[in-house]
């Protein structure tokens, strides 16, 4: 095993949290039973890494196997790094019947046509997600496995999630994706974040949306134990309305854990007391970022409690409705 591969393995072991190391190695399944027994997981990571390197050398494992291990780890723990979403548009007539084998072959062949020396690994996860790992090399050098790009796509949906893609390789990857999924174009979907599961759940509508219904199910009385007949909430109706509108806009229960939203303002400065600024012709460029451990639940709470006015402004309701968290706002209209 040459030094670069050893380095790759060591870095990977350092990256995997100690608590997950044993289970990830087991899932990998490339170590023999005695090897697995001989590994002492109470040692320091550095020591474990050293031992693993020698075990892998003995078993003659190659870079292919190491990247397999990395892919297993990332697939099980996808909420790291920064994921960006792209949307495929203009499907061709047979786009809806693209199946896995076909997609795999097409993607690999298109990508290697566009760039030589790329190492591509494609694997289907149990939830039907197709995971792609691309290590980029160029005509002269071998693929760089330390900075691999990860792509997640669900066939027959328009969305593609990408992690760690450099601007140099972006057009190549996007073109290969467009061709192999039989679409004509791909564009940025303006939705990004650390938690892949949140982005996916938002776009696939895997959360409890609320729709107006003629027969609303009765909400359980939450504080019946402390209800006293003489206490009457003065604004009960207004509060109930706000809760309902907030629920209809954002959803019920646990919402996808989106962590930020950015509004890029390119509007004219409006402050009558500040002539110096208002006199300028150019728009005032300002960026507003909302951050939260769960932005959608925070915004819902704002609307329900009255901090944000209801009906919820389209600036905020566009986040779940359009499934994006980056907006550019000009003076005319927020760009869709």
């Amino acid at each position, binding site marked *: 095993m040459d030094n670069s591969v050893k380095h790759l393995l060591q870095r990977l072991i350092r990256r995997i949290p100690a608590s997950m190391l044993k289970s990830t190695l087991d899932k990998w399944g490339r170590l023999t039973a005695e090897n697995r027994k001989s590994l002492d997981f109470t040692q320091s990571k550095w020591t474990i890494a050293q031992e693993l390197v020698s075990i892998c050398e003995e078993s003659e494992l190659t870079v292919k196997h190491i990247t397999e291990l990395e892919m297993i780890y990332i697939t099980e723990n996808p909420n790291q790094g920064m994921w960006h979403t792209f949307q495929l548009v203009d*499907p061709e007539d047979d786009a*809806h*019947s693209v199946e896995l084998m076909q997609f795999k072959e097409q993607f690999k062949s298109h990508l290697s046509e566009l760039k030589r020396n790329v190492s591509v690994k494609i694997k289907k996860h149990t939830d039907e997600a197709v995971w792609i790992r691309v290590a980029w090399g160029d005509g002269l050098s071998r693929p760089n496995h330390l900075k691999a790009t990860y792509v997640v796509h669900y*066939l027959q949906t328009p969305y593609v999630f990408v992690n760690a893609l450099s601007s140099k390789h972006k057009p190549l990857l996007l073109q290969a994706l467009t061709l192999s999924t039989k679409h004509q174009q791909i564009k940025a979907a303006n939705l990004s974040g650390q938690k892949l599961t949140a982005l996916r759940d938002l776009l*696939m509508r895997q959360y409890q949306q609320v729709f107006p219904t003629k027969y609303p199910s009765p909400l359980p009385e939450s504080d019946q134990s402390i209800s006293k007949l003489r206490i009457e909430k003065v604004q009960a109706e207004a509060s109930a309305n706000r809760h309902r509108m907030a629920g209809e806009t954002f959803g019920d229960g646990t919402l996808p854990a989106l962590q930020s939203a950015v509004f890029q303002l390119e509007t004219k400065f409006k402050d009558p007391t500040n002539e110096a600024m208002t006199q300028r012709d150019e728009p005032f460029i300002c960026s507003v970022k909302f951050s939260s451990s769960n932005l959608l639940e925070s915004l819902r709470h704002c609307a329900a409690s009255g901090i944000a006015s209801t009906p919820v402004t389209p600036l905020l309701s566009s986040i779940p409705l359009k499934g994006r968290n980056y907006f550019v706002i000009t003076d005319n209209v927020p760009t869709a």
Partner: protein
Amino acid sequence: MEGASTRGVLSHLSLLEVQARNRGSQVPQQPSRVKELKAKVEALTSQRDQLKAELQIHKKLQKLRAPADKHEEDGEDEEMDIDSKSSELFHLMARHSELTDLLHAHNLIGGYDAITTNGGKGMCFSLATEYEGVYLDTYNLELNLKPKVRISRHNIPPFIPLNSLAEQSDLQTDVGAFLATVSQHLNAFAGRRQQLKLVKEQHKSVEVMESNLLCSILVLMFTVPKDKTPLLCTLEYTDHTRCLPTRVHLNCHDKLLPDSPNWKKNCSLLKEVPVHRALMAIKKDSDIV
């Protein structure tokens, strides 16, 4: 002079005499005629009474119907002096007629639960899916009606091509056709997904090698009892409005097996019968483990 005699007094008298004689002969018919007429009067009276009573009941039922239909308060109830026993009956009858009308209206709008939103500017439709008599997921679709009919919010998964379906049926003039197509796609998808679930539950000896979110392709691995040969079966559901595959393809090391009469029969069975039930039949014939 002859003509004058027919119009004279005497002729008139003789005419009267004839009439009197005729009337005299009718006199014995009168009692039965009277009886007839009396009977008729009785029948008509009782019919009138019956109709009056029905009218009264109908009026009462109308009053008892849900307040949403009329703007009447409880005060009106006092006008009806009906005793408690018949009032229960009246309430039931009122409810029954209300429900029948509601069901009729439900059928008129295509069987979807619909509600206007946003002060009449929008409508929200509820599309239920079912398969083999079991209700599955319900999907919702909101439409904005003004200025143009446009799809607003929905919770339909992205692998159902909602936008292209909206383009195909003219949303502005025929919302019903659009909803019917969407409902067809959703029900077919729910049916295929349910079949996959049942295959996994009921046929543990069959391995699912590949599927996708839309459930439009299914690759199964069978084990043939003789020699435990693996047999790969691909089911392609290219018509997304149907629950049955359009193409069934077999792959095996033993090239002759797929062409055997048994397996040809099994292939056509898989195209005609939902997969979980087809597998039961195939197992029964001992063609697979």
